[in-house]
């Protein structure tokens, strides 16, 4: 349940934005949660190991497989970077409600974007040099 929390917060934020904007509530927040649940279930059910040897290079399934693996890999990187940034922030500001704590959270999240961008750039460059982006 704890792992579901970020996506539930995100879906709730979508609903709040729709409500605050004076628009009728749509099914978008529910679709977001459903898409997340389906993606996670598929990612766990599919046997990824050895699949690259069974698809035809250049075919749709080849591209779909690489796309899924890229997303899975980058989601892992993003998760690891988030944990690192939040642990560093918690160590620097152990008292959550004292001055500077909220500000540090803001800077930590901003730093996360920078880190994610750098990692994405390097990952893209590495794969590009291997011919994956041709």
């Amino acid at each position, binding site marked *: 349940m704890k792992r579901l929390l970020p996506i539930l917060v995100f879906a709730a934020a979508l609903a709040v934005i729709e409500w605050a904007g004076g628009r009728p509530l749509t099914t978008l927040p529910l679709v977001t949660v459903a898409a997340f649940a389906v993606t996670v279930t598929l990612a766990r059910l599919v046997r990824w190991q*050895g699949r690259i040897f069974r698809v035809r290079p250049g075919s749709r399934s080849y591209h779909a497989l690489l796309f899924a693996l890229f997303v899975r890999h980058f989601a892992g990187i993003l998760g690891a970077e988030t944990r690192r940034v939040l642990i560093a922030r918690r160590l620097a500001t152990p008292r959550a409600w004292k001055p500077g704590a909220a500000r540090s959270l803001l800077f930590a999240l901003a730093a996360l974007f920078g880190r994610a961008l750098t990692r994405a750039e390097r990952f893209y*460059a590495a794969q590009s040099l291997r*011919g994956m982006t041709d």
Partner: protein
Amino acid sequence: MTPVLEVANLSFAYERRSPVLAGISFTVDAGECVGVLGANGAGKSTLLWCLLGLLKNQGTVRWFPPAPARHALSRIGVVFQNPEDHLFMPTVLEDVALGLINRGWRPAAAREQALAALSEAGLAEAAARPASQLSLGERKRAAIAAALATSPEMLVLDEPTAELDGRSVRQLTAVLANLRVARLIASHDLGFLGKLCSRLLVLGANRLMAEGTAAQVLADAALLERAGLM
């Protein structure tokens, strides 16, 4: 000797900033191991990115034998500092085989060649494991195996010993020393480059401060001091 890389008067600056590299010229011959030595921030990684065409620079970068730019890069094996930038498949074997499959190899042949490359990197037993379960030293060697599997004419490595312990550095040194392919290695690790490279290029103050045999460069304490390496 036949050159595999010729760099003439290469300069690079990030937008509206002072130059990071200016007037860099050198060559790398076939089978040669050349080290790019420099302190943190000297521009080693930037130089490699320029050579690989990932940053737009002034000057000339020529790979031999000449080929259209897109094909030229497919003949170079590249290993960045962080092996996670290269390894994302479910197993190490698939990571190494992917470059071959992408080049149109049949799966069985790609698997065989990938196993041979892993074996060369001392990782044959790790083939069926995911990269996330390997140590950093093993992941670096796996990334090297992935680069070597495609039989490149040159291997380019950026800070290969960063964050490695003594044993991992020794294992990495042994793997790289046994290769016959030309190697260009950027690092600030004097001992590592001293053991591997026949020639060293010293980067500092945005330019190529010196070039010479590893023995000459490493014996010049004043030069290393000026380059921020001691």
